[in-house]
């Protein structure tokens, strides 16, 4: 298991490296000149050239990549063009804000999605199943800004129940912060519910139809015990991986939701960096998302291995 994990982490690092290449060179095809972008159209060519030199963007690409990647490894994420100061602190505070929003979404969605999926599976083919499945499917594919607008119009504008921006302001008490986060969380919950419920449903149906479920039932166990002890343990394993991969979608959704609700998280940070051609900020932000995703999937793998004896223990005969 240890060797598997090391291999897994090794592959993760390899993936991150490829990702850094993609991100870096995607940043390079951005049109325009960083010095010009920062100083504006009126600046003299000499000033632009000087700034370019200062930023290091006039060096060969390989050199730039090398100094960027070694900088990253030393915790130096570069200087933001936009703010003329280190990227790190901006990223850190944005990450914390996004984490609040994302974690709240996960806390709501994991039990809800699993319960929905299991319930649908137990009533497979009946109206309850169709309702849950179709709701999940529809909710999952409506863009976050669309459901966001609907909830804003309904709860914020018409009913005036909740604030339409997400940021409660610094130092606001916990409950106020939570209240401000309710509306932005809804679109995220919508999108994720469908995936998690779908996976939980599929896994549960497979387990219900399995031979071991038959064995358990014919032992004379009650249906509740069969489901709790024999079904769920096997059926929810694949769901763990899905939840981990969904963290990626969650972050994608954050870009939109944070823009819509004007919330200072990593999504809006990336959006702003991209529109103002702030490469160091953009690259660091995107790579951070890659790291978060990688960590989430590795945690999911560890969980899956720990909970699945077939993976935990080799075949001994």
């Amino acid at each position: 298991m240890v060797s598997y994990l090391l291999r897994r982490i090794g592959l993760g690092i390899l993936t991150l490296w490829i990702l850094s290449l993609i991100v870096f060179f995607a940043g390079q095809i951005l049109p325009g000149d960083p010095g010009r972008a920062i100083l504006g159209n009126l600046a003299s060519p000499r000033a632009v050239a000087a700034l370019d030199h200062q930023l290091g963007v006039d060096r060969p690409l390989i050199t730039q990549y090398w100094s960027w990647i070694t900088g990253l490894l030393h915790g130096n994420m570069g200087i933001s063009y936009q703010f003329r100061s280190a990227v790190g602190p901006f990223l850190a505070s944005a990450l914390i804000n996004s984490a609040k929003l994302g974690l709240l979404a996960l806390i709501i969605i994991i039990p809800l999605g699993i319960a929905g999926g299991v319930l649908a599976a137990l009533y497979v083919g009946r109206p309850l199943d169709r309702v849950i499945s179709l709701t999940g499917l529809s909710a999952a594919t409506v863009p976050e800004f669309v459901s966001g607008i609907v909830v804003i119009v309904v709860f914020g504008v018409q009913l005036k129940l909740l604030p339409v921006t997400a940021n409660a302001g610094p130092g606001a008490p916990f409950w106020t912060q939570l209240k401000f986060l309710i509306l932005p969380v809804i679109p995220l919950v919508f999108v994720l519910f469908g995936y998690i419920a779908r996976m939980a449903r599929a896994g549960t149906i497979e387990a219900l139809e399995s031979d071991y479920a038959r064995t358990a039932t014919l032992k004379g166990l009650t249906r509740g015990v069969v489901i709790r002890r024999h079904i769920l343990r096997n059926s929810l394993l694949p769901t763990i991986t899905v939840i981990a991969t969904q963290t990626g979608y969650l972050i994608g959704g954050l870009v939109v939701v944070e823009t819509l609700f004007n919330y200072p998280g990593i999504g809006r940070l990336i959006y702003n960096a991209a529109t103002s051609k702030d490469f160091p900020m953009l690259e660091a932000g995107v790579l951070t998302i890659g790291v978060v995703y990688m960590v989430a999937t590795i945690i999911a793998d560890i969980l899956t291995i720990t909970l699945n004896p077939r993976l935990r223990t080799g075949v001994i005969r």
Partner: protein
Amino acid sequence: MTETDTATAPPAPQAGVAVSVSHLDVSYTVRGHDRLALRDVSFEIGQNESYGLVGESGSGKSTVALALTRYLPRNGRVSGGTVRINGQDPLAMNAAALRGLRARTVSMVYQEPGRALNPSIRAGRQVAEVYEVAGASRDEAMSRAEAMLAKVQISDPGRVMDRYPHQLSGGMAQRVIIAMALAAEPSLLILDEPTTALDATVEAEVLDLVAGLRTELDTSVLFISHNLAVIAKMCDRVGVLYAGELVEEGDAQRVFEQPRHPYTVGLLRCIPRQGQRKDHGRLDTIPGFLPPPGQSMTGCIFAPRCSLVEDQCRQAAPPPFPTGPGRTARCYRHDVAPELPRSTPADLQLGPGPAPEADPVITLRGVSKSFPGRDEIVHALAGIDLDLQRGETLGLVGESGSGKTTLARVLLGLVPPDSGGTIELDGSPLGPEVKSRSREQLKSLQIVFQNPDSALNRRHSVRRLITRPLVKLAGLSGTALRDRLADLVASVRMEDRHLVLKPRQLSGGLKQRVAIARAFGGGPRIVVCDEPTSALDVSVQAAILNLLADLQAKEQVSYLFISHDLGLVRYLSDRIAVLYLGRLMEVGPAERVFSGPHHPYTEALLSAVPSLDGAVPERIRLSGEIPSAASPPSGCVFHTRCPRRLDTGICESTEPPLAEVEPGHQMRCHIPIDQLTRMQATGSAP
């Protein structure tokens, strides 16, 4: 109507009857239509009696088990008749009573033991659960579970308790399930194809175990199997199911000796028995096909396939006629059923057969194959030397994991052998892989796989499937292609109308014929038959074997015939090769290998096979499980399980060579041939 008619008055729980099923109808709703899977099935199982239900796939035998435990799928329901288990009616029970019945009265053992156990719960816990349902505390349940595992002859129950199912071999998992089933001390034990997924040697052990425990525990048994010989060995009485109807019933031995229903007669003739070989003539077959499930029929359900059919058979379904003490047959013509005319002529024109002095078609010398495993190297084949003559059938036998399929794949070039060995076709070396072989060489070596569903591209039509080798290997086109196609289709006894169909529209037997036609399309010299009939029903199997024999006679092709069914191997093979852990243990003429003296491993394989012919030879048992091919035992690889191991220690230290013990008969054993002959004649250990 008849003496079995009990529908009007359900019997009071009477002594001596554990299960009574009367006039049971079960239907499945498929797309709004009710399809009868069982119709008017009546039988009783006495206290401590072992009752066998035998039938081919689609006969409804598993549906009986599901109905008894009320575990029919959502679309299935009992649409008529009654069921009583110990006088109780499971169909009328509420949920709690049904749980009680399942917990205390009825237990079940399943076909695929590996899948019947929960993969994420330790084996011991799963057995203990049965005791907990009965009210035992957790600790008590665990200790009783361990005792139960010991009772099913698991030598180290403490260790098995802690294992997860994937860490158990098939035989071990089935013992755990049997322990689980017997833990509740049920009055009825249902075994649904309990040994079908197991090797013959393991099957023999499991069957012995069940037979032993049954007498010890006072349990009635319902034994469901497609294997007539297993039923004959295990059951007092037998019911023969055909297309959802119980067509014949009675004492097991008598039914198999003197069947009185044309279906039973035909079924028994499909199986090569008493050492029957292809030179004794063709096997008989049952013409036609099983009717599609739920087809309503006015007359006898077997009438369309019966050569004794009369007008009355088509007008009204026959009632069960008494045909002897405790015997019935649903046939108007039960009196003449034993003289059922053959539906396949017995005469088989065999080719000249292998010429012993001729050069072999294929020669393997020192062929090995190892695969990288998780932490070690698995030696699937070790130094195989083998020849195949023109027109000869070489039977290849051995337990699963012995390397049979690897040998076939290496020969075909689907996996490259380890360097060092040679494979020659007509004296010229064959490339290690398909892509390094010439078209002529590809043409010469073809295969018929076990499962036609897997071997035929399900998106291609029959025409496309059969035509492709004619174009690609035989290089035909135009009229020549059309003529050869028609010829080939006729030679596998198919019709033109089949050509437009997709594989899923064909029955299993027809699919296998398409696969055979594909293999013969290029005009092969050698065809590997890898368990070509094990996915098929008995009645279909005979027709496929006849076809293979006919084609061999016509085309003078050589077969490498791989099968776990020694009866089939004996029927078709000229020579036999026995594999164990990737090594050839014995190679020789079929009759010599079967009649002995034979290698102790061959002896063990042969004595593990249940026979319909009674007179089972003195059983020698294989102890322990097949060792891992990654770390084969020292010396003779078979010594860890060998019942005839010499006490000189030579078996443990030195691997014997594959030596010729008589002309054309080689064996890998330290025991001198005359000593082996004496041992096997008397059945004694050394």
